[in-house]
């Protein structure tokens, strides 16, 4: 028998019983590790008081692969295969600082053409990474359309990356002293196109025009959307002092108003030859972080269009010994990756592989501010804040 209540006999709550203070205690809410908005397997243990978050403790390590240990038993050319898989959304960009570090220790001059190819492909990796962000971030806070647009345009960029390197996500294309020659890429009699597939310049131009159009579309479709603005503006504000102390870098740091971009300040690739701007945010909120990344795509497309215009001809590989031995020394080389500063501290003892390789990844430092940013935030804002940090768990756990 189901219990039915006699409407005439309902208990009436007296005023006294309502005003009795009820003791509340925080509820523990486990988010992840299997949650679409965690970009991999991140677990957050949140203490919530109603809709309000009182504390958050991220739990890492579900994807820890021990690359720093593995690098110690590999030779230098073999390490590039590993570092591709750190931030898999922009695998190509991960190779650059490691290769540049090994070249610095070996004192190798990389030919200009190889540097240009590296630069073009790095910027393509940046565009493809920001396309993923522009699709995933609105999706996480409830907008379904942008991901379809973003994935379509990203595919075009990935096709270009694939046509040169042979890989969409893990190119493993850089060699110490240059880049990998592409077999059967155009007539080999013409020295200047032996390394890029036929029609690469034309296809790149077409793809970059499409990227520029896509950025305009995103700015209207996502940035102009009132719901998106309401969900992101003045949400998850990060001040620059906190960001610097925690080592938060990349677009997140720039959204907080710090004019710091290693492409301008460092010389790991010849960025000084091109005209491009560094977008800076003003408020440091989720909207600014989205906005900085989206504007960056436009700048990256501009860089690529300039680079294919004045592409130098010449060799793509410096002369290197057959067996690569890096002389004794220590160096730290860092680069501006799509997600922030990525660097490798290489300790070489003169062997075939590094004695110790410290990998500094952007997302690791970037999400270390989560406990601070989420304290006192509303639960629905948690997804918006996490999404705006644009992290990849492979980049956090290494």
């Amino acid at each position, binding site marked *: 028998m189901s219990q039915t209540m006699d409407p005439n006999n309902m208990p009436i709550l007296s005023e006294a019983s309502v005003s009795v203070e009820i003791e509340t205690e925080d509820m523990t809410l486990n988010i992840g590790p299997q949650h679409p908005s965690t970009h991999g397997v991140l677990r957050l243990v949140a203490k919530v008081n109603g809709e309000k978050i009182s504390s958050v403790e991220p739990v*890492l*390590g579900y994807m*820890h692969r*021990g690359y*720093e*240990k*593995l690098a*110690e*038993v590999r*030779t230098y050319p*073999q390490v590039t295969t590993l570092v591709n898989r750190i931030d898999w959304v922009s695998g190509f960009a991960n190779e650059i600082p490691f290769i540049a570090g090994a070249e*610095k*220790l070996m004192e190798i001059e990389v030919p200009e053409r190889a540097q240009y190819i590296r630069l073009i492909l790095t910027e393509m990796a940046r565009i493809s990474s920001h396309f993923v962000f522009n699709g995933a971030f609105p999706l996480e806070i409830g907008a379904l359309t942008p991901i379809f647009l973003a994935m379509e345009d990203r595919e075009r960029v990935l096709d270009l990356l694939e046509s040169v390197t042979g890989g969409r996500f893990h190119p493993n294309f850089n060699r110490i002293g240059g880049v990998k020659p592409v077999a059967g890429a155009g007539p080999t009699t013409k020295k200047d196109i032996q390394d890029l597939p036929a029609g690469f310049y034309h296809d790149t131009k077409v793809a970059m025009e499409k990227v520029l159009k896509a950025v305009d579309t995103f700015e209207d479709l996502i940035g102009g959307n009132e719901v998106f603005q309401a969900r992101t503006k003045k949400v998850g504000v990060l001040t620059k*002092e906190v960001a*610097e*102390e*925690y*080592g938060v*870098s990349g677009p997140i*740091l720039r959204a907080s108003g*710090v*004019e*710091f971009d290693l492409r*301008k*300040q*460092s*010389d790991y690739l010849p960025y*000084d030859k091109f*005209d491009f701007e*560094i*977008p*800076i*945010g*003003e408020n440091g909120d989720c*909207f*600014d972080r989205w*906005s*900085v990344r989206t504007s960056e795509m436009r700048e990256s497309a501009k860089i690529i269009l300039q680079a294919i215009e004045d592409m130098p001809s010449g060799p793509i590989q410096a002369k290197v010994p057959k067996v690569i031995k890096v002389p004794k*020394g*220590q*160096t*730290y*080389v*860092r680069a501006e990756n799509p997600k922030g*500063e990525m*660097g490798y*501290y290489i*300790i070489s*003892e*003169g*062997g*075939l*592989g590094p*004695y*110790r390789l*410290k990998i*500094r990844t952007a997302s690791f*430092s970037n999400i*270390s501010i989560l406990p601070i940013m989420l304290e006192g935030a509303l639960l629905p804002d948690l997804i918006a804040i996490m999404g705006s940090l644009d992290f990849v768990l492979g980049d956090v*756990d290494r």
Partner: protein
Amino acid sequence: MKILKESGERKTLNQSDQNEFINSIQSSFKNTSYNFDTLKINVDLSSWIDTHKILKKDFNLSFFNWLSAVDWDNEVKTGDAPKEPVTPSFEILSCLSQTNSNNLVISSTVISKENAEIESLVDVFAGANWHEREAYEMFGINFLNHPNLTKLYLPDDYEGNPLLKSFELISREVKPWPGDVDVEGMPEDSIVVEEKGS
């Protein structure tokens, strides 16, 4: 609505500024080296915290890049041993930089393996928290006055410190690599042979 400020002026690498910075560091600290574009300060264990305070306050190195450690040992179970003998010890490295230039400093100090402990940097740079937890689990280094010195990546019941040179990489013990047996038969081949035999 204007949400972006475009930085109009083009920044170029200013070599003289960088040299000035290196000179000012070298005049303030005794034991410095500048090799392969990397400026490194070797500090005593006792002045580890003070050095970071000075670097942060006086040299505007307010950006905390990373902190880690190196296990120096002559007997290694993974990789190659150093060519020249070293004193077995832990080297703690930290990296600080400026956010308006490419200036960067690596600080280094040495602690003994028997008494592997060092003051935590969390009070100076809050961002050191996770980096120190990683060094704690990977090397077994004890960071004194750390607010939450627990394992970061590894499970709570994990035994051993994986980045120690004495820690074996089990997969390498099972199958040595790089080896000369790069050309193995495909799994299908062996199946075919078995079928023929039977």
